[in-house]
């Protein structure tokens, strides 16, 4: 086993996902076989090989630092579920409502 249920729970926490307790066993088994598959890469000699992290070989792309009109604020609120005073309304971030934070 490359991973166990504890690791899966830990990674789920990082990914802001919740795996139901009743599914955790099956999910872990499945993830384990996937991870075992990707670890075939261990057999590849990559000594001294630079990594490729982009689709193109071009580097920084610059533009003139000139202000341009963006998307209208009202439009951007169109898909927001709850709003108040021009902001998105969400539950309190802290137990006391966050006013002292």
């Amino acid at each position: 086993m490359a991973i166990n249920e504890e690791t899966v729970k830990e990674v789920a926490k990082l990914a802001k996902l919740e795996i139901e307790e009743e599914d955790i066993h099956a999910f872990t088994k499945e993830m384990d076989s996937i991870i075992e598959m990707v670890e075939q890469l261990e057999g590849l000699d990559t000594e001294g090989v630079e990594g490729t992290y982009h689709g193109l070989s071009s580097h920084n792309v610059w533009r003139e630092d000139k202000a341009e009109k963006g998307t209208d604020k009202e439009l951007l609120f169109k898909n927001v579920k709850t709003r108040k005073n021009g902001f998105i309304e969400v539950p309190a971030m802290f137990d006391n409502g966050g006013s002292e934070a």
Partner: protein
Amino acid sequence: MNFLDYTLEELHDKLIKKEVTAVELAEASFKRIEETDSEVGAFLALNKEKALEAAKEADEKGIDENNVLSGLPVGIKDNILTKGLTTTAASKILEDFIPVYDATATEKLEQAGMITIGKLNMDEFAMGGSTENSAFKKTRNPWNLNKVPGGSSGGSAAAVAAGQVPVSLGSDTGGSVREPAAFTGLVGIKPTYGRVSRYGLIAFGSSLDQIGPFTRTVKDNALVLNAISGHDPKDSTSYNGETPDFTEGINKGVKGLRIGVPREYFNEDAKEQGVIESVREAIKLYEKMGAEIVEVSLPHSRFGIPAYYIIASSEASSNLQRFDGIRYGYRAENVESLEDIYVKSRSEGFGLEVKRRIMLGTFSLSSGFYDAHFKKAAQARTLIRKDFDTVFADVDVLVAPTTTTTAYDIGEKINDPLAMYMSDILTVPVNLAGVPSISIPCGFSNDMPVGLQIIGNHFEEQMIYRVAQAFEKETEFSSQKPSFKGGK
């Protein structure tokens, strides 16, 4: 009016001669959808009212003689933003999402006068190879309704194969245009990375994703790619060199060209020999037409699948962080804290395959595994890319099968993620290398279409289309029509 009987140029000609109007074409599209989509299941949303309005405007304004796409219907994969028309990526998390702007590709097609008919089904967030991962519906293969249309752009493929629209757009991160094109007997291209702007394409693997068209013929495909290509200031990874006319030189033939056959792409032990046989026949035809056939090697091909699944999933785990239930998309109910909104909205909104990929990506990027996974995969990617650089110093294009099998049964692989991943073995190296590749129909095996993959060097789509066109002209495969059999 049946779109299966005409090329885009023929439809354009009819519009110019006023034998048909843009409104009639749009109506024909909706009628065909009404007749066939209860079986095929390609569309997630229809744009009926606005499409008919736009078609009416196109007729009144007059069809542009110099613009072959003017007034023609098109279907758009549901991960490509369409202003005012739902765009869900086939996910519950975006079920009611209505974009407030267009993707650059959509905008370019509309500027060219195309009429958006509706949005097409797909695997959720483009993760899958059969369209069975859609949160909303199954799409069936028009050649045999018991079989998958391929994926992730399965709706885009099925809609064109069923004659519902003459053209559609898909996206290809690891084969998601080429595999469904192969499974449904169509032409589908994954352009060079950077050729088409990704602005407004819901991001999956940002260093791999490209939008590409589905059509029935090679030239049609080149015409649509002409319209959607080009530099876009809104996508800094879009190529800022010139965009050639992809139809230029398309009829030059293959005489004197060097065509490479990568030995790693021909598994002689494959369970469906009919695929390899069809491709071998195609190679013989190229030889007969005067091309020089050269056996070549892409030695790192077998590391394509593990490298791809690490890189694509890592990029996805980062890209999909934006779905947090706050600014748009599904928000879980009965939540008490902000953390609850994130975790519950994501856990209830994402499907199982998407969760698997996010988990694999998060794992591969996590501190204990970064070197062994993400970094190693990036190094493998360099070696895979170099394989292509080496062979393209010697040959003009590569030809190979697009897939290892023809379309399989619905339900056959959906509970076996590894088997599903392995089906991408012949398509993912192209995305990792960033090179362009097309799939064209080249025969039948088990009564289902077989795809021939033609891979070119970076930005050499013209050469790919030329080689594809030579084959199409000599064969009848692109004019074959699906039977809609096998369904209930």
